[in-house]
């Protein structure tokens, strides 16, 4: 994960469900252009926030041993906007998990109101390479940033960090 786009985890229930929060700030430069005079969080970045929330949920379910890559946006429906000064809550539920992939369903809320549904499919990269060589190290879950983020969890079950990364 090259950059962290969620602020903290409110809940983390291993292999089941995670809730993260992302607060939107006018200091984010892209908001100056999206849109000029009417800043709103781009839908693509709401999907990114969900992909990180759900991706870490999937990664932790495999003890961070798999390279978990967003493979497909199965469904993304937006009902309302998210604007600077607001915080959004991203709830991800792990629906299916197999050696090759995982799927999640997600709900985005702003002050308790649902503003989006985002369902994702993740690939376990090493299981879907068709024989193509790839780096061994887990570049998805670098230990430092993920470890920092995991220390923000407010409410959780027992979770574990991987030795690699």
């Amino acid at each position, binding site marked *: 994960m090259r950059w962290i786009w969620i602020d903290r985890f409110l809940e983390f229930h291993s292999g089941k469900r995670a809730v993260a929060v992302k607060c939107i700030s006018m200091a984010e430069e892209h908001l100056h252009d999206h849109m000029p005079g009417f800043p709103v969080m781009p839908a693509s970045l709401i999907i990114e926030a969900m992909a990180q929330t759900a991706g870490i949920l999937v990664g932790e379910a495999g003890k961070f041993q798999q390279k978990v890559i967003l*493979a*497909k946006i*199965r*469904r993304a429906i937006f009902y309302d906007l998210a604007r600077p000064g607001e915080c959004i809550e991203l709830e991800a539920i792990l*629906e*299916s998990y*197999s050696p*090759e*992939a995982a*799927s999640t369903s997600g709900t985005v809320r702003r002050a308790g109101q649902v503003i989006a549904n985002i369902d994702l*499919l993740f*690939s376990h990269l090493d*299981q*879907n*390479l*068709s*024989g193509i060589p790839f780096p061994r190290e887990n570049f998805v879950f670098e230990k430092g940033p993920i470890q920092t983020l995991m220390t923000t969890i407010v409410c959780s079950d027992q979770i574990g960090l991987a030795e690699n990364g």
Partner: protein
Amino acid sequence: MPYTTAQIYQKVKEVLVDALGVDEEDVKPNARLMADLGAESIDFLDIVFRLEKAFSIKISREEIFPGDGFFSDSRLAADGRLTDEGLAVLKKQLSHIDFSGFEKDPRLAKLGDLFTVEAVVRFLEHKLNASGPAQD
């Protein structure tokens, strides 16, 4: 619970409409998942998960589609074709697929054409109703 072929077909149709974003009328029994409905490799994982949910069963990818390692094994596939061994392995593994016609010229480029809506229905029929015939 036993399912009739019509019930299975209807659910498969719903799964493919959701997974591939195609219109319901395009999902005909002989429609090929890749060439006609635009499925890519990652969609097969999505389809497997959606079928599991729709029918409340567990399916491994290798049961229904060839697994990831298959095509990189030179004993099974070489020079753009299935080897005799590869064909034998797939025929055994994927009993819902009709290989007649294909086996005369087992080019990998043509393999995707065998995975039709009908083949998926056949797979589920076999898996779901293994314990007995469906009751209408």
